């Protein structure tokens, strides 16, 4: 499809603006401060734009159109009511600086109440003392969390330099720890697919500031040593970080705070059903135990004795500003609506069925694909394409084959510790019929991998483009319209 720029016709207009209502003014901006040439933006009609982007949208897979069993991404259904309530003008037109005008908090009580209540809900769900909703994505939450860990050690005069992270962790963990000023030590996984406990103990010395864990881990396995790990880290005055990417396995049933975690981040765009938007915006709430409360970023939302809400900007020990205001408010509002809808009972059903569905796929497919860790899993299961590799079929080929059968591929080549990994997370919102259709598709591909591997190498053939040359993309670096 042509770029919108290529559809441009000189003089064509999309939006009609009002005539200038003010009389001719005294001071125009001098030409020395003006741009020489107009920005070369498209000259198209409103219909041109609507049709262009509508047709572009049709080149996408999405949850609304396809099953999306993407491991570690929790692609569950995004309820429509959460979208519609967020469009309420009382929220969408609300200026973020309004609370800073005199008596300003009073002008935004509805929004502050949403934030306050959401904080309470998330604190209850995670078993944490206090939350901040400011991080604008999961990785942003990780950075905030590690900054909180750093602030704690600084306040105690602890001289700690390292963060321990298992090799199965998401790449954001080591990246976040590094930009928060720590060096990262990677701990290998053991044959059971969880962090090697002995290797961990060996690395756990006095200079360790904290440990970052994903529970269940990226293999969909729950590390039974987790409470012991927390205890050992606490013994050297370290802190344990909970990466909430996989909370969908535990939500409503297990609280990270009860397990001994000190800092938690949540991905509202995973567990709490806000849409991914093709890569964002997300939101990454962070929770902490009581002794870390005072380090949370400014501003803090407080409930006054008279039942009104206010913002507190005075936080002496705070790590400061990690967001200009209160985070991705529109996303938090959607998650709040979701929580109101499903309530405590609904939350437990979420994890129950996320785990039930993943195990169903696991048992139904293990005859056809290698399952490196063959045991009950949590919300996702990881297969390997190693059996199909003997016929020259890789995880990538299986992924592309699934596309032709109408399914979004699972996460492939992650976690790195499984060769030719295919990580499947069905979520709780897919019906049995949909799971069965996916299982049949996977079987069909397994069959094709042995009967007719060449066909799979050519997949996908049903999409607007086939496999793209990524090497050429890097070498040619064609990154904007000419």
């Amino acid at each position, binding site marked *: 499809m042509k770029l919108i720029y290529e559809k441009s016709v000189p003089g064509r207009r999309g939006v009609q603006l009002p005539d200038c209502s003010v009389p001719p003014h005294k001071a125009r901006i001098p030409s020395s401060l003006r741009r020489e040439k107009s920005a070369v933006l498209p000259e198209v009609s409103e219909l041109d734009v609507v049709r262009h982007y509508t047709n572009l949208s049709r080149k996408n897979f999405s949850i609304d159109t396809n099953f999306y069993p993407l491991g570690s991404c929790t692609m569950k259904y995004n309820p429509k009511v959460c979208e519609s309530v967020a469009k309420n003008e009382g929220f969408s037109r609300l200026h973020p600086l309004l609370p800073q005008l005199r008596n300003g908090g009073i002008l935004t009580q509805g929004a502050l109440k949403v934030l306050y209540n959401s904080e309470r809900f998330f604190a209850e769900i995670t078993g944490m003392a206090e939350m901040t909703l400011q991080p604008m994505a999961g990785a942003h939450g990780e950075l905030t969390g590690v900054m909180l860990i750093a602030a704690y050690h600084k306040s105690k005069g602890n001289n700690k330099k390292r963060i321990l992270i298992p090799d199965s962790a998401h790449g954001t963990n080591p990246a976040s720890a590094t930009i928060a000023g720590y060096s990262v030590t990677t701990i290998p996984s053991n044959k059971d697919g969880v962090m090697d406990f002995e290797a961990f103990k060996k690395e756990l010395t006095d200079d360790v500031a904290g440990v970052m864990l994903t529970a269940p881990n990226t293999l969909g396995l729950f590390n039974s040593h987790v409470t012991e790990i927390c205890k050992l880290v606490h013994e050297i005055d370290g802190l344990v970080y909970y990466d909430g990417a996989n909370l969908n396995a535990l939500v409503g049933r297990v609280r990270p705070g009860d397990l001994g975690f000190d800092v938690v981040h949540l991905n509202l765009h995973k567990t709490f059903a806000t849409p991914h938007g093709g890569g964002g915006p997300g939101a990454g709430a962070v929770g902490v135990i009581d002794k870390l409360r005072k380090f949370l970023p400014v501003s803090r939302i407080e409930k006054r004795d008279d039942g009104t809400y206010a913002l507190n900007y005075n936080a002496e020990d705070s790590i400061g500003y990690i967001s200009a205001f209160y985070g991705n408010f529109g996303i938090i509002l959607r998650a709040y609506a979701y929580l109101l809808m499903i309530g405590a009972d609904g939350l437990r059903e979420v994890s129950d069925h996320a785990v039930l569905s993943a195990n169903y796929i696991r048992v139904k497919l293990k005859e056809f694909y290698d399952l490196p860790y063959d045991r009950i899993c949590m919300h996702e299961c990881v297969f390997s394409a190693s059996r199909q590799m003997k016929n020259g079929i890789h995880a990538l080929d299986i992924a592309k084959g699934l596309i032709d059968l109408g399914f979004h591929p699972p996460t492939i080549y992650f976690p790195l510790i499984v060769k030719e990994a295919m990580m499947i997370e069905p979520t709780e919102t897919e019906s049995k019929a949909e799971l069965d259709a996916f299982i049949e598709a996977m079987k069909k591909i397994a069959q094709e991998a042995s009967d007719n591997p060449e066909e799979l190498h050519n997949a996908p053939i049903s999409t607007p483009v*086939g496999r793209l040359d990524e090497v050429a993309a890097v070498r040619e670096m064609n990154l904007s319209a000419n």
Partner: protein
Amino acid sequence: MSRASYVPFVESERQELLKEIGVNSIDELFSDVPREFQVKSLNIPKGKSEIEVERRIKALSRQNRTDLICFLGGGFYDHYTPAAIDAILSRGEFLTAYTPYQPEVAQGTLQAAFEFQSGICRLTEMEVANASLYDGGTAIYEAAMMAARVTRRNKILVDCGVNPIYRKMLESYTSNLDMQFECVSTNGGTVNREKFLKKLDNSVAGIVIQNPNFFGCIDDLTDIIDAAHNVGALAVMSVYPISLGILKTPGAMGADIVVGEGQSLGLPLSFGGPYVGFMATRKKYVRKMPGRIVGITRDDQNRKGFVLTLQAREQHIRREKATSNICSNENLCALASAIYLSLMGKEGLKEVAELCADNASYAYYKLLEIPNVSRAFKSTFFNEFCIKLPCDAKDIIGELIDKGFAAGFPVGRYYEGMENVALISVTEMRTKEEIDNLAAALESVIRDW
């Protein structure tokens, strides 16, 4: 079974699944988690119906004063968002898609992101742009880190005209790193050349400047950027994209890294987010740039297609050595901005900018006619300006709320000694009547003081 967990299973299906798995209950699937750590119940209200949730959130929304006539800006503006944006954004194919790691089924998202990058490049007159960052503040921080990476130096000079909230963010993010920041105070509302030149030496990684700055003042910053280049430092410039409909571009001034808050390009104010940060730079620095980047390539049948490219910079490959930890960005907001730029187009964006400037200019002189109101700076401005009031701006703005106006921002909140100064922004949304009414209201408040 609650009414709305969106779980589609009926009891018989659940039993069937359990049987296939070979367990008797869902509880058995959680046997790895010690019993004592499984909660019985949570202190969260029972689930509600859609009608009840809508009603409750509507009631909450009424407790927010969005009825006030908005002259409040400070980097976040009440611009018009054409209806077509929301119509397109509501399409599930955009809204509920994941990050485009499988390009064959994400050409829509990828091409739109490429068009966003192109729009940002054309607006700023820069060579390459990424597919978005979280917001304008984190974009400045990422740019400062990028300048340090490119120059292998660690000192950043920040102009005090840069949004004070963003400066606080910069400080917070780098407090544990080997980075050094120095704020350079402004002079007459714009960059203090003399002070900047004095501080510029070959230890400086980059300078961070903003145009228009927080006071609304605009300037040609070419000389200060040249001075930075002379000592081998990079110039990071934060911009207000609507203003680039008419203002001299950062590219023309020689900036190396251009960042900004994209909220004004078709996003609602939404109490602070989600917004969209953008970043553009020169091609030679692209490998040091954070965030996702979309590029053009071809498939085996020579059909044009779009992919995420230069991914070796990113956390999922480079881990602790990545250019940034960013993963999720603000893709849907970037899409809104791409649509906005297309709808406005070449002439429309210029007209919006002219309307803003004309309205602001009218408002400025109208307000200066009020006794005891005077100019705070002599500098030229775009759509936002500072005026000096006879007493604390906080109190006067407070009084004006009762008259139905969010009249501006009290600058003294962030700048010591400027307690009497109000920052007033005027967009294309304001009419002559509203401006006249603000002037009348301000005059009466000051008269009765």
